[in-house]
């Protein structure tokens, strides 16, 4: 499971990040830590039970990496390009995604709840049983994505496109939707509030 070691700073509720004894906010060498992670990600392809909470990642490319039970809560991703990424039971709650591209990924049983997604493309991706509850999305494109049994409950979706996606059993209840397109997607198999069914 997750290797969770509490941050030793008095009163800090967070866990220490992987390879360090403190949480990211209490690290003194944040830049050096990020550089270490960039080279660690480059050298390895499989990551299990790690914690990268609150870590900002910018201008990165992930190719065919596998993340199992990795905690990225409150992490920030900008200009991330990922292809053939596997995320299994990963926690990306309260994360920020800005100008990211996820292509050909396989995500199962992951949590993106409470996250903010901006100008992001998710293409040709399996995102089975993913928790997107309360996400705030603006200018996001899901293209040819399988979102079977995922939940977007109470999310804010603005300028979001679900193009040719599998929406079987996807829960959109209590969402705020503005300029949301479901072109070529089976939105009739998704769950909406009765009053605002598409």
């Amino acid at each position, binding site marked *: *499971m*997750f290797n*969770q070691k509490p941050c030793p700073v008095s009163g800090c*509720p967070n*866990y220490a990040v992987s390879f360090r004894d403190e949480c990211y906010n209490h690290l003194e060498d944040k830049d050096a830590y990020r550089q270490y992670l960039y080279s660690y990600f480059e050298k390895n392809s499989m990551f*299990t*039970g790690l914690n990268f909470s609150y870590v900002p990642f910018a201008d990165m490319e992930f190719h065919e990496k596998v993340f199992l*039970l990795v905690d990225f*809560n409150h992490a920030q991703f900008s200009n991330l390009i990922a292809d053939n990424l596997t995320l*299994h*039971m990963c*926690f990306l*709650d309260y994360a920020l995604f800005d100008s990211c591209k996820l292509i050909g990924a396989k995500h*199962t*049983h*992951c*949590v993106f*709840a*409470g996250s903010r997604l901006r100008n992001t493309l998710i293409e040709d991706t399996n995102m*089975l*049983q*993913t*928790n997107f*509850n*309360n996400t705030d999305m603006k200018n996001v494109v899901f293209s040819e994505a399988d979102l079977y*049994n*995922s*939940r977007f*409950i*109470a999310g804010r979706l603005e300028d979001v496109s679900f193009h040719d996606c599998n929406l079987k059993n996807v*829960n959109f209840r*209590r969402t705020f939707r503005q300029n949301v397109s479901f072109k070529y997607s089976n939105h009739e198999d998704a769950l909406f509030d009765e009053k605002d069914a598409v």
Partner: protein
Amino acid sequence: MRLYYHLSLPYLTNTYLIGPACGGAAIVIDPGAMDVQLLELVEKHHYYIKSILVTNPDKAHTSGIKTILRIYDAVVYSGDQRLTEFPGKCVSEGETLNLEGVQVQVFSTQRFSRESVMYKIENCLFSGDAISAGMVGDGASFFGKALLILQLKETFSRLRPNTLIFPASGPPTTLELETNFNPDLCS
């Protein structure tokens, strides 16, 4: 410890497998089916199922038990006496089980269903049908749901906000997310 997830197809429910990093005695939670994929998951990691934890003794969570017991010599833990047709133990609120060195805390959700329990292992809460991402007690009556909400609030006040919740159906969530956003719990 390693945690693995398996979707039990007949009922589309989640089954979880927990075991040491390098093989050995494993715990399976809510085996809705014992199919080839789950067997492969167990064998690939050199596990031997020693304990079966049941959150709710209905078919969606127990259909795989008979098959598992034909293969492995396992003990069934449940909040329901009826499951004692299998070699097992009835658990109740406040109990802590020691399963091959793994501490398992038992939390009752009997206000939702008399036999329902949740299990906490390390910082992971296996909540069964009591709570899933954005929903409380799907399928419960109005009165039952109201009682369950009270019980969940009471239980959650004793747990750390960053407790991870793995429900029997749908995607995982965290205690912080549910207490912040789940309309039944944050009001």
